[in-house]
């Protein structure tokens, strides 16, 4: 009961969405082959659940997402720390980053397939590219905007470089880094589907492509809904983490 009350706005939103969808089908008079109605999609969703197919696809997608995400996030933080504290290095690296950043990760797909083949790798690499830049840039910004007072304290107390990093630079930049990690979860999840459309034989992106090829639009929509829900849950999770980090960084939440 408590859970129902706590998320009453979310339930309301879902009900409104389904009502809109259903009325669109009625008013437009669309065929099932063009726009399946909610009940049909629910049926497809249940079928996917029963057959265990959904479980396999979700597992494959989450595996690629997590591997690709951390494969990029860890070096992005590392390079971000390095570039953020070395002015000259960033002056040179910044134009390169700004040039590469606006390129959609999918644009690299021909090379990705050439270099990494098919299977799990294309999706992992595309998710990595999507994760790398937001994390890198927010880490650099975080390292660059450490308050001068804290740096003066470090100088005054004669901290060595490691203590300076451990006690001042990293904690000061942490909220910004976690902010970048948050943005990256969103963008990386968006590119998951695109990544899995290239040569994957499982995963939610593959599920959608496969269902389209057999014209099962109810399965396509079921896949889309699952992607949406998982994306929402991932975002919720990182928001919680962000809140904890900000609290212990001394920010008002």
């Amino acid at each position, binding site marked *: 009961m408590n859970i129902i009350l706590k998320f009453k706005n979310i339930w309301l939103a879902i009900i409104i969405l389904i009502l809109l969808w259903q009325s669109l089908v009625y008013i437009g008079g669309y065929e099932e082959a063009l726009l399946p109605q909610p009940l049909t999609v629910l049926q497809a969703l249940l079928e996917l659940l029963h057959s265990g197919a959904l479980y396999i696809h979700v597992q494959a997608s989450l595996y690629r997402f997590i591997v690709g995400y951390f494969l990029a996030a860890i070096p992005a933080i590392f390079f971000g720390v390095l570039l953020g504290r070395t002015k000259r290095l960033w002056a040179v690296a910044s134009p390169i980053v700004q040039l590469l950043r606006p390129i959609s990760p999918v644009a690299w797909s021909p090379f990705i397939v050439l270099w990494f083949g098919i299977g799990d790798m294309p999706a992992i690499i595309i998710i990595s590219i999507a994760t790398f830049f937001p994390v890198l840039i927010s880490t650099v910004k975080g390292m660059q905007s450490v308050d001068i007072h804290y740096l*003066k304290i470090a100088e*005054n*107390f004669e901290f060595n470089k490691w203590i300076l990093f451990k006690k001042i630079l990293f*904690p000061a930049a942490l909220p910004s880094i976690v902010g970048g990690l948050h943005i990256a979860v969103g963008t990386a999840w968006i590119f998951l589907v695109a990544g899995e459309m290239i040569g994957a034989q499982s995963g939610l992106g593959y599920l959608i492509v496969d269902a389209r090829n057999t014209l099962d639009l109810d399965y396509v929509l079921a896949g889309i809904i699952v992607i949406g829900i998982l994306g929402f849950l991932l975002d919720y999770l990182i928001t919680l983490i962000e809140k904890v980090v900000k609290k212990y960084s001394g*920010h008002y939440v």
Partner: protein
Amino acid sequence: MGIVIFEEVCIIKVMINVENIYKTFKQKKEVYHVLNDISIDVRAGEIVTLLGESGCGKSTLLHAVGGFILPDKGSIYINERLVQKPQRDCVMLFQQLNLLPWNDALSNVELGLKADKKIKRELAKQALAFVGLNEYHHAYPHELSGGMQQRVAIARAFAMKPKVILMDEPFAALDSFNRYHLQDELIRLQKHENLSILLVTHDIDEAIYLSDRIYIMSAKPGEVFAEMSIELAKPRIRTHQDFQYYRRKLLEKFKLSQSERKPEYYI
């Protein structure tokens, strides 16, 4: 240099010695003489104030003493050591942001200490107890009032056992009740440890209440315009006529320091 003979009985050491320093800043081809031939000294156990309006270079002078900036000419000695960079024996306190927001009060005090973990914790607890913050060991800076934050910072500075403490308008961001309270606290701690303090302020009352000596600075170029000793026993009484006497004298000096300059406008 180094030693001043005082009343022929006790020899008092000079803890801070600033000898003829100059500092200029360039901005858009214009040259600002922020510090122009400045010589000051602070003896052991003395509280000395740099008093002046904003822009007179008092904060720059303090930063030079702390080693955060180097003078163009002249030299600065702390306890007979030539100042070239900030060091632990000369702790600087700012108006705010002295504490790391991601550390609680205890860890913030420990930040300045060098010892084993257990000993550090013990020293930090003692330091906080000394400023009456026993119940706030695990409070984060944003959970403390501005006055309490400064008290933690002062506790840390004293716990570090430095030779001198530099203070850059440490109480300027506080309300008057808190300010009075902390001024008393500072005098108590300073007496207890017999530390030398160089303090920057633009508050005449604060200068008279705390200082053994006051250097009055004037702007453009930044110079020491006058020096004044406050010969009143501490704790001083703000409403006493002697206090008012020094106040009047200081205000007169300020008027003099301004009359040298041409007025920027006529009414």
